[in-house]
């Protein structure tokens, strides 16, 4: 059981790092503000969540009892990121920044 949890923690922490890198890559590569919000909003949240889960798994394995403090971070980030992304998107709309529309819906 402990070995399984330790391997799970190792895989999750590397996956979380990869997800953080992909989120920032999206932030750099996407063409306008509204698409750029997707990288940090979704993928970076996935990365932080994976690393928090890895922390839970590792400390549960090493202490022999469930260690759930890091779940607080997961819950907090999962609750607040959609709100902050929504606020920033509204600010971008308010400033009239250019975005791309779906094909067939051109103004």
């Amino acid at each position, binding site marked *: 059981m402990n070995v399984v949890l330790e391997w799970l923690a190792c895989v999750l922490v590397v996956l979380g790092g990869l997800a953080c890198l992909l989120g*920032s890559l999206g932030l750099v590569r996407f063409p306008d*503000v509204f698409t*750029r919000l997707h990288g*940090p909003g979704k993928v970076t949240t996935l990365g932080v969540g994976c690393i928090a889960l890895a922390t839970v798994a590792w400390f549960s394995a090493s202490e022999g009892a469930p260690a759930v403090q890091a779940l607080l971070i997961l819950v907090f*980030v999962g609750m607040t990121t959609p709100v902050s992304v929504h606020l920033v998107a509204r600010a*971008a709309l308010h400033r009239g920044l250019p975005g791309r529309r779906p094909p067939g819906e051109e103004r």
Partner: protein
Amino acid sequence: MIATAAGIAMLLIGLAMALSCWRLLRGPDVVDRVIALDTLYANACALLLALGLRDATALHFEAALVIAMLGFLSTAAFAKFLLRGDIIE
């Protein structure tokens, strides 16, 4: 084993922070800079958690939690300022 994995993750998160800094410095509009700052906060939170895994200490939980809270509050304040030109009306 976990030290190696957490080291790899910290390297990847460091690269992610460098990319976010590039967008923070470059970003054509101030909204891009706010998004980059929010990403930097999230990455710093993940970096602290990975550091706690590498050193096998539980001391970094609270710091990561505080960074997550500050990130949300500062992003909300920036968005409010951009929307209204004022934070407390």
